[in-house]
């Protein structure tokens, strides 16, 4: 069943060039019989493409939302820009510069008062995940990672130009510089760990658990040592819709509520090695 559904998703994705480009209100979405949902690319375990197949927790969440609303799913998967403000502009309220395409709903949007206040053309709500920063560590090299001080002598990986990279580069006034290894993508960062070039990788907790699960030949654990100076140690993840599509946001919120209380989101997460933590709602 899942396999068939995924095939359907890819077929619909191919037809995307002809669909409407602006984020739409609830009635328009239902009338048209399809919904466009944005997810990040190269963002395992939430959303990524592998051998032409789009997979991940957020991909399955998007599929559930479409099923719940009884419409077809157009999945809009593309990369992250410089920051969340750019992502909201490109994917929700304005569209991209070349094709002017936006989605009806964006998944994986941090819920943060300051972000919300700055971006009044998008509405952010419906928390469905609790996320936090963490480190996945090889137990045989560092049995107990109490502080980041271990990385003055052991190598640590991070995805290039991400929060983990910024944190490690700044830590102890640059003391860790010689031991940081950066992967240009998340996939290549996993490979740094799989090929034992690093003793640990800093990433979100879900990503850390995913790495621990996937790189099965290493005996790994996930830990959250003190992170002096980190901006947010944990936060909630929700969705965004365009400011004049609030009714669509509420309908998607109902779908997410069903996904959470039925326990489905926990079992989807488990498939990817991720422990589901329900956010405060």
């Amino acid at each position, binding site marked *: 069943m899942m396999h068939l559904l995924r095939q359907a998703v890819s077929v619909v994705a191919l037809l995307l060039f002809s669909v409407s480009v602006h984020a739409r209100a609830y009635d328009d979405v239902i009338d048209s019989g399809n919904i466009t949902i944005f997810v990040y690319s190269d963002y395992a375990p939430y959303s990524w493409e592998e051998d032409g197949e789009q997979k991940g927790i957020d991909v399955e969440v998007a599929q559930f939302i479409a099923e719940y609303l009884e419409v077809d799913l157009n999945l809009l998967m593309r*990369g992250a820009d410089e920051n*969340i403000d750019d992502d909201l502009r490109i994917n929700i309220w304005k569209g991209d510069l070349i094709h002017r395409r936006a989605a009806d709903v964006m998944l994986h949007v941090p819920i943060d008062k300051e972000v919300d206040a700055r971006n009044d053309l998008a509405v952010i709500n419906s928390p469905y995940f609790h996320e936090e920063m963490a480190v996945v560590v090889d137990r045989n090299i560092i049995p107990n990672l109490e502080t980041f001080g271990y990385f003055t002598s052991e190598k640590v990986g991070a995805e290039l*130009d991400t929060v983990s990279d910024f944190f490690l580069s700044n830590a102890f006034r640059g003391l860790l510089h010689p031991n940081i290894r950066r992967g240009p993508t998340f996939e290549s960062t996993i490979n740094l760990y799989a090929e034992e070039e690093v003793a640990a990788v800093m990433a979100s907790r879900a990503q850390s658990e995913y790495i621990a699960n996937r790189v099965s030949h290493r005996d790994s654990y996930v830990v959250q040592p003190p992170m002096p100076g980190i901006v947010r140690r944990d936060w909630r993840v929700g969705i965004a819709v365009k400011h004049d599509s609030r009714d669509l946001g509420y309908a998607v919120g109902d779908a997410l509520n069903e996904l959470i209380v039925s326990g489905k989101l926990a079992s989807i997460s488990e498939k990817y090695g991720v422990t589901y933590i329900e956010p405060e709602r």
Partner: protein
Amino acid sequence: MKQNFAWLAFAGTLALSGAGTATAADVTIDDLMNDQASTENVLTYGLGPRAQRFSPLDTLNKDNIKNLFPVWSFSFGGEKQRGQESQPLIHDGVMYVTGSYSRMWAIDIATGDELWQYDARLPEGILPCCDVVNRGAAILGDKVFFGTLDAKMVALDAKTGKVVWRKTIGDYKAGYSYTAAPLIVPTEAHGPIVVTGNSGGEFGIVGAVEARNPDTGDLVWSRPTIEGHMGTLNGEESTMTGTKNETWAGDLWQNGGGATWLGGTYDPDVKMLFFGTGNPAPWNSHLRPGDNKWTSSRIALDPETGEVAWGYQTTPHDGWDYDGVNEFIAFDMEKDGETIKAGATADRNGFFYVLDRTNGDFISGAPFVQDISWAEGIDENGRPIFVPENRPGNPAESADGKKGESIFAVPSFLGGKNWMPMAYSTKTDLFYIPSNEWGMDIWNEPITYKKGAAYLGAGFTIRPLFDDYIGSLKAMDPVTGKVKWEYRNQAPLWGGVLTTGGGLVFTGTPEGYLKAFDDETGEELWKFQTGTGIVSSPITWEQDGEQYVAIVTGWGGAVPLWGGEVAKVVSYLNQGGSVWVFKVPEQLASR
């Protein structure tokens, strides 16, 4: 200077006896090298490989410029407008011009009729950082070449516009893009080569200069701009750029920036390529101790091998986003009775540099904008004298994520001069620099998120220095470092400059005017309202005994994308997309 005139005269003779009389002739590499002297065509970006943007034509002069009138205007059409930064090429009665969204047209100059249009089909998922511009094409043999926003180089049949070959020069999915005009230069070992830089997003891209075979598009050599990376020659590794980790910590050199997105110039005299390199990555300089070579630099390359002949860093350890991509223009400088093989460049950082182009030795560095605050000046070794308190702080050190202390840096990150090319007159020996007088407030930004996780960035606002103008066209004497005259414009200048043997300096304004100035005094002699902002570079040529001038129009580029105080002076400007062609009607030419 004598040498230079002799060379021009020689080239002029060639042009008269050769290509000038031929019809439908294929363009040769010699034609490209002689482009500055051959006034009946414009075959290169910059009116010659040195890109001096000087035409010896003097039919049009200070007296008859008042009679310059439009001949035709050609609309790029479609729904796609935005910034038009392109410089047209002219060959054999045909104009080849590129436009926004990676489009190109061939136009019959006699009638203004379209001959063909090429429209690159751009894939999903390109996120160009700045605007969807293109700066121009190159021509050789029976082909025209240009780069597209999805980082492909395309060779088209000049007669039909059909694709001859199309090669990937970078992966757009990794953030690579292409907007510059390609450069074609001669080599002994490989024949003519097409030389390109690269461009893309802020972090993760390593700058490089690449040479390709114009017939096949195959790579001949490549030269990364960042220390520690290996170059290639004929499909094999050649040499490393610099020494690994000499001016970079840890593995940061692997993703160091230094993109060469504005392309380069070539001097047939010393047989060297000159490329400018972009700012280092990441933006926060506190994350990458060291000089970070060769970012924010000029580098000279041997076209035979791609080896670095010399490098000169204008902003070591850049912390202000002072991209060092600006053009380096070769010229011969008379100073103290000697002729110096010099080159000059006007940097984002506000200083105008004169270097010895044979070895990169520093000769002088003088401010060309006012109130520069990041450095007190340039010392005798060519290194900036930094003002430490005007380096943007480390966002990570504002622990609570509140707006930290603000600094005011001049120039702004859009630069004392941005991409728009200056011109050098062999008549007046002056450089004409399109510059802007603005600074930026930088502070530690409130919280933001990247790919789902929270961090502190930097916030900035660009502010004009003066109430009544931002744009400033300056005549700079490279010998003294003094500004001889200045024209002030309310909106920021974003277009290139052209100067002529007739004593004229042309440039366009965002307000929509193409203007002509007296090259000695800066007096405004002529202007024409084109109906939309100008952010491109004018050209001039001679056809059937008449002197033509052309400019691409269409407001856009980086300025409208960045808000701040500057937005107020440009917010009313309308977009567009067309070419305007002018000449003096024959019956008025002698008046």
